[in-house]
C-alpha cells in the first residue's frame, strides 16, 4: 500500500513537473504565440508547440536513457541514485550562483524550434529534474515485482523494463508540458493579448533552481529509505 502511494505520488510528480515546465516562458510557449503572429496564421501555433514538445521529449530521453543503461549495475543502484540526486542538487546550486542565460541558446536560428527546445531543456536542467523521480519509479517497480527474482533478474530484462519506464516518464511529462504550454499560448493568442507576455513573465530563475535542489533532496531522502 505504501509503495502504491509513493508510486502514485511519483507519477503525479512527473505530470506536475510537466505542467510546471510548460508554464515557464523559458521553455517556449511565447515562441508558439510569436510563430502564429509572425506567420499570420493560427496553424503555426500548434505546429510550434509540437516542435517544442518534440525537442523537450528528446532532451528527456537523452538524459534518462543513460541512467537506464547504468541500472544493470544492480548492486550499484543505491550509489547511482545518490549520485543522480547530487548531480540534480549541484545543477540547482550552479543555477542559483550563476543565473546567466547560456549564450549558445541565442545562436539558434529562430525557425529551429525543436533544436531550441532540446537545448533549452538541457541547459536549464529541465530534463535533469526528472531523473530522481524516474529512478524512484524504477526502484518501486522492481521492489513490487517478485522479490525473489530481484537479485538475479536478467539485467537485460530489467533494462528493457526501465527503458520503457523512461520512455513513459518522458512522454507523460512532455504531454503535460505541452498541454499547459498550449493552454497558456492559446489564452494569450486569443484573449489575453501580447501585453500578457511582459505582465506575466515572472522571474522563475531562483524558484527553478530551488526546484532542482528540492527534487534532488527528495531523491536523496528516498534513496536512504
Amino acid at each position, binding site marked *: 500500500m505504501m509503495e502504491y502511494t509513493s508510486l502514485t505520488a511519483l507519477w503525479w510528480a512527473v505530470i506536475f513537473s510537466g505542467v510546471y515546465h510548460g508554464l515557464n516562458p523559458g521553455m*517556449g510557449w511565447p515562441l508558439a504565440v510569436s510563430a502564429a503572429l509572425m506567420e499570420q496564421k493560427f496553424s503555426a501555433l500548434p505546429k510550434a508547440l509540437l516542435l517544442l514538445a518534440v525537442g523537450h521529449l528528446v532532451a528527456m530521453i537523452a538524459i534518462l536513457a543513460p541512467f537506464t543503461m547504468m541500472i544493470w549495475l544492480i548492486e550499484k543502484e543505491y550509489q547511482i541514485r545518490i549520485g543522480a540526486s547530487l548531480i540534480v542538487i549541484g545543477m540547482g546550486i550552479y543555477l542559483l550562483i550563476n543565473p*546567466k542565460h547560456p549564450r549558445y541558446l*541565442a545562436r539558434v536560428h529562430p525557425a529551429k524550434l525543436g533544436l531550441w527546445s532540446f537545448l533549452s531543456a538541457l541547459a536549464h536542467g529541465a530534463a535533469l529534474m526528472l531523473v530522481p523521480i524516474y529512478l524512484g519509479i524504477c526502484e518501486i517497480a522492481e521492489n513490487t515485482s517478485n522479490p525473489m527474482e530481484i537479485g538475479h533478474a536478467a539485467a537485460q530484462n530489467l533494462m528493457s523494463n526501465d527503458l520503457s519506464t523512461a520512455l513513459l516518464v518522458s512522454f507523460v511529462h512532455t504531454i503535460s508540458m505541452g498541454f499547459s504550454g498550449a493552454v497558456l499560448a492559446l489564452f494569450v493568442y486569443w484573449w489575453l493579448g501580447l501585453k500578457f507576455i*511582459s505582465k506575466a513573465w515572472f*522571474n522563475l530563475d531562483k524558484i527553478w533552481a530551488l526546484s532542482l535542489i528540492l527534487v534532488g533532496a527528495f531523491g536523496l531522502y528516498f534513496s536512504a529509505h
Partner: protein
Amino acid sequence: MNKPMKPDPTFHASPKLAMQAPVENFAFTIMLGKDASQHDGLAVIDLRKDSQTYGEIVHQVMVPTTGDEFHHFGWNACSSSLSPLSGHAFLERRYLIVPGIRSSRIYIFDVKEPLEAKIHKVIEPEEVFAKTGYSRPHTIHCGPEGIYVSTLGGSGEDGTESPPGIFIMDCETFDIIGRYEMDRGQQDKHYDFWWNLPQDYMVSSEWGLPPQFENGVVPEDLLSNKYGHSIHFWDLRARKNIQTIDLGENYQMALEIRPAHDPTKSYGFCGVVVDTTNLQGAIFTWWRGDDNTWQAKKVITIDPRPEDPENLPDLLKGFSAVPPLVTDIDLSLDDKYLYVACWGLGEMHQYDVSDPFNPVLAGKVELGGIARETNHPNGKEFLYGPQMVEVSRDGKRVYWTNSLYSTWDDQFYPHQEGGQMVMANVGENGGLTLDPNFYINFPENTRAHQIRLEGGDCSTDSFCYPSV
C-alpha cells in the same frame, strides 16, 4: 545580483504596445566638447509637461577625460529582452553605453535615477583594441547575444590596417566578449546597423574610414567617390554577410539603417548623405524580394538649393549650391512616418512611408541651414541645421539637435558655434510644427548630438512580436 521578479515596465512585446505606453519623462542628450581639448558628457533634460523645469537641462555628467567625441549611444537592454528565444526578461533598462568615436573609450552611465545619473564603468581604449582589433566604437544595439557595438575603425594608429566591424559586450558585466563577424564578405567600412530579430537578419552601412572623417570631410575623397556606398545584409545568428548591395558609387555615405519596427515586415530605409553627381540627398528602401534576395531602390531625392558662392563656406563655393546633406533619418514606431534631417539645407522632412516604395512628403520644418539660417519660431537663431532626430514612442513629438561631428560642423558652418535641441509636434494627420517653447541652448563649449528618450524611443528598441 538580485534581479527583478517581473520584466522592466519599459519592455514591450510589440511596437504597438510601446506606442501605448506612458510618454517619456526625460531625454538624455550627448554633449560633445567643442573640440578635442574639451570634456564630453551627458545632459538630462526634463520632459515632464507639468514640471517647473520642463524643457531644461536638469542634470549633467561630464566625463573626466577629453577628446572622446561622443556620438551615438544606446541602452544595455530594450524590448528585445522579451525575445521568446533568448529571453533576458529580467534585465533592467538602466545603463546607457556611450562610446567615444575619437578616443575609442566607452563610458557606461547609470541613469536609473535620471536626476542622479552617474558614471558606472569606463572601458579603456586599450581593452577595445586588444579584445576586438577594432577601434572607434559607434552604434549600440542590445540583442540576442548581448550588446552589439559597431566600430568605424579597424586596427592600427589610424584604424585602417584591418576592416572595422561589430563586437559584442556582455549585457550585465559590460565585459567585451569579442568580434561578431565570422564571415564579413566584402564589408570593409562600417557605420550603422540594425536588424529584425525574429527574421534573423541584420543590415549594416558605411560612412568612411577614420582618416576620411576625423579631421573633417576630405573633399577629394568625396568627389572621387571614396566614402562608403554599400549596404550589407547579414545572417544575424550565423554572423555571416549574405549579400552586399552597392547603391552606386555616387551615393556617398550610406548612413542610418532604419528597418520597419513591425517584425513581420522585411523592409527598411537607408539615408544617403550626398549624390556626387547632382548634390541631391537620397533615401533608399531596401527589402527582401520573393526570391529571398535583398534589393534596394531610391525612393526619395531631395534637391540642393542654388546659392551665391559668396554666402557659402569654402568647401561649397565651387558648387554654388547648398546640398541637403541627409545626415540622419528616423522611423516612427508605427512605421508610418520617416523623418529626414537635411543638415545642410536646414530642414526636417516628414514622409508618409505607409507605402515604403512611394513616400509622400507630409510635413516640413525649416530651421537654420547653410546660408539661410532660419530662426526658431521663438525668434532666436538656430545654429547649424537639424541633425540627430529622435521620435517619441507615441509618434507625437519629434526632438532634434544640431551638431554633426566636431570637425564637420566647423567646415560647413565655420562662423557658428554651440549646441541646441528643439522639438516639433506632429499633427493628427501628419504635418510638423516646431514647439515655440522648447528650445535648449547647451552649455558653453559643448555641442549636442544623439538623443535617447527615457524608456526607449524609435531608434533603440527591437521588437520580437508583431503589432496586432
